[in-house]
């Protein structure tokens, strides 16, 4: 048995590791995508005043603290049995739209972009955000930074701080916004809509205009036919902040929708001996292993899943892009994982349009931004769509509001089984007997999991903050015969 190990150890977002095993002939035998999670976060949150938890959980991860803050805030509302006023819900959602625009922009331009703009097998020295900026122009780089700046400004205005918001409390928010702030937010929102349209145009020209990339996206290597989940509003349109979670099968048939407090009826977790992280699956379908199909409970929760699980987008420009997405890719649902990147841009446009909608609502500047809780705290579940997938926070407290149990199912955890299958399939197709495992091939395996934008969950930023990649090929005795190293 030979072994190839892809070990992206990072101090920034925890670390994951891919082990690829070859048989005696040198053909692919199996692969495992391991995620050693940070230890003890849920335990760390026990014994706290429950309203502290949305502040604590937003430090699980430096990438999407806003998502944890929102899911946590909703869970705390539920714990206190309090329904925030419309203005509070809209302000939270507005903050969240600004966050989505920031996050999706970063992923498209800095992370997925290099593979498409520079090419999946381009030399590493060029296949990065700097290469993208050089190729498509400095002006675009400036726009990306501008989009992020606007997003952070809105987050700070509503959330009290850049990056790690802290204003959501049981029943609403600690503060509202002024008319001057509203005008500023609206102006930035209009800019964001134009930027999102521009980004979709860029995708059209660079990716969809290139047959090689289209073939790569549509090819079998990056395709899996699984179930999909995503939050929808009462009209079954995609919603990131509120609603029910829609579940569709691989043929696109809706199996049902669940409210946050019903999640345990739908989601169960499978434990495998070779990894720390559990594999969630659809309880009503059942665990049949890491396989595709209607009979397998494996599901995905990503931008593509949200589009697949919904009937459309709630804003006009995004709806038009939604229709174009499915007509180009051959109808619903779309199973090609690399289409997640395109779906992300459809969502970017929706988030920007929704930003403007909320900023122009007459009640957004109302002073009615909190309902004071009056009931005893017990138990509550909050769900939002994090950029990487459905995020569930479940808190139980004693009658004083001290947490006795905390359960979190984070975006990437949902996708763990699907990620395992995707990396396996990519490796299986790309690494064959006699194949020299080049950096380009390694990157194409990486692309299989990068499309999910997986988050390994933490916000440790101790230096040197690197993500070395090590590929070790072992012979049948387990001895290393070839080592490919990237930055380690």
């Amino acid at each position, binding site marked *: 048995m030979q072994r190839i190990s892809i070990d992206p150890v990072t101090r920034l977002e925890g670390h994951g590791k891919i082990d690829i095993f070859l048989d005696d002939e040198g053909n692919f035998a199996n692969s495992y995508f391991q995620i050693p999670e940070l230890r003890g976060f849920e335990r760390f949150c026990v014994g706290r005043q429950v309203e502290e938890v949305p502040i604590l959980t937003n430090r699980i991860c430096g990438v999407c603290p806003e998502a944890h803050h929102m899911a946590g805030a909703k869970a705390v509302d539920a714990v206190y049995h309090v329904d925030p006023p419309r203005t509070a819900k809209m302000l939270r959602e507005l903050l969240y739209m600004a966050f989505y625009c920031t996050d999706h922009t970063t992923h498209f331009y800095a992370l997925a972009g290099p593979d498409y703009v520079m090419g999946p097998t381009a030399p590493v020295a060029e296949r990065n955000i700097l290469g993208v900026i050089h190729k498509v122009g400095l002006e675009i780089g400036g726009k990306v930074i501008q989009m992020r700046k606007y997003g952070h400004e809105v987050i700070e205005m509503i959330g009290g701080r850049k990056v790690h918001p802290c204003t959501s409390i049981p029943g609403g928010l600690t503060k509202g916004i002024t008319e001057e702030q509203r005008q500023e937010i609206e102006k930035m929102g209009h800019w964001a809509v134009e930027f999102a349209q521009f980004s979709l145009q860029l995708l059209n020209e660079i990716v969809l205009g290139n047959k090689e990339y289209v073939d790569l996206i549509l090819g079998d290597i990056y395709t899996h036919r699984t179930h999909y989940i995503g939050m929808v509003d009462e009209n079954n349109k995609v919603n990131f902040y509120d609603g029910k979670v829609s579940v569709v099968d691989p043929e696109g048939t809706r199996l049902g929708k669940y409210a946050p407090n019903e999640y345990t009826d739908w989601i169960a977790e499978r434990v495998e001996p070779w990894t720390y992280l559990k594999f969630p699956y659809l309880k009503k379908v059942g665990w049949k292993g890491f396989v595709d199909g209607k009979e397998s409970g494996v599901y995905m929760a990503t931008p593509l899943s949200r589009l697949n699980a919904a009937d459309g987008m709630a804003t006009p420009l995004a709806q038009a892009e939604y229709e174009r997405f499915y007509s180009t890719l051959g109808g619903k649902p779309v199973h090609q994982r690399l289409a997640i990147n395109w779906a992300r841009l459809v969502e970017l446009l929706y988030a920007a349009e929704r930003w403007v909608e909320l900023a122009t609502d007459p009640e957004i500047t109302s002073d009615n931004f909190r309902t004071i809780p009056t009931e005893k705290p017990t138990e509550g579940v909050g769900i939002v769509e994090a950029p990487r997938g459905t995020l569930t926070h479940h808190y139980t407290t004693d009658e004083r509001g001290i947490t006795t149990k905390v359960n979190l199912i984070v975006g990437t955890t949902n996708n763990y089984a699907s990620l395992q299958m995707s990396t396996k399939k990519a490796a299986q197709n790309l690494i064959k007997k006699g194949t020299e495992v080049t950096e380009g091939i390694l990157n194409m395996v990486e692309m299989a999991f990068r499309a999910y934008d997986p988050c390994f969950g*933490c916000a440790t930023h101790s230096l040197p903050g690197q993500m070395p990649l090590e590929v070790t090929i072992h012979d049948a005795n387990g001895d290393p015969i070839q080592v490919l190293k990237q930055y380690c």
Partner: protein
Amino acid sequence: MKTLVVGLGNPILGDDGIGWRVAQKLQDTGKLPPGVDVVYLAVGGISLMESLVGYDKALIIDAINTNQVPVGTVSSFLLEDLASPSAGHLSSVHDTSLQNAMQIGHELNLKLPDEIIVISIEAMKIYDFSEELSTEVSAAIPEAMRITLELLSSHFLDSHE
């Protein structure tokens, strides 16, 4: 001249909170020279670079894991002297390294500090959730403060240790 002091790290991830702690104590001394701002951040890469925009100099205080010096050792060095193993590649699946981000900022003509010094404290526990620092790391706070204040009063003058 505007200088930014960044306390970097995650305050609930054990020794990774050392950067915050030092920055906080520095602010509490009330001895910071004029023109010095202090922030606490739990971000990296592009976001960290963005927070430096508009400053002439910057000091970043952070935990480090070299496994080559005793826990609690305080060092300081120029950012460019810190290896950027991720150069040209993703340093994480969501972000890039600070060095890459700085390069992007320069290419985009953002006003970034012309000198960035990292003050690092060798850490022990950074993978367990805790608000406590380990004893050795906690004991390094005065030394980290001394070095930071010295650098600030010298306006750096390339006098990092």
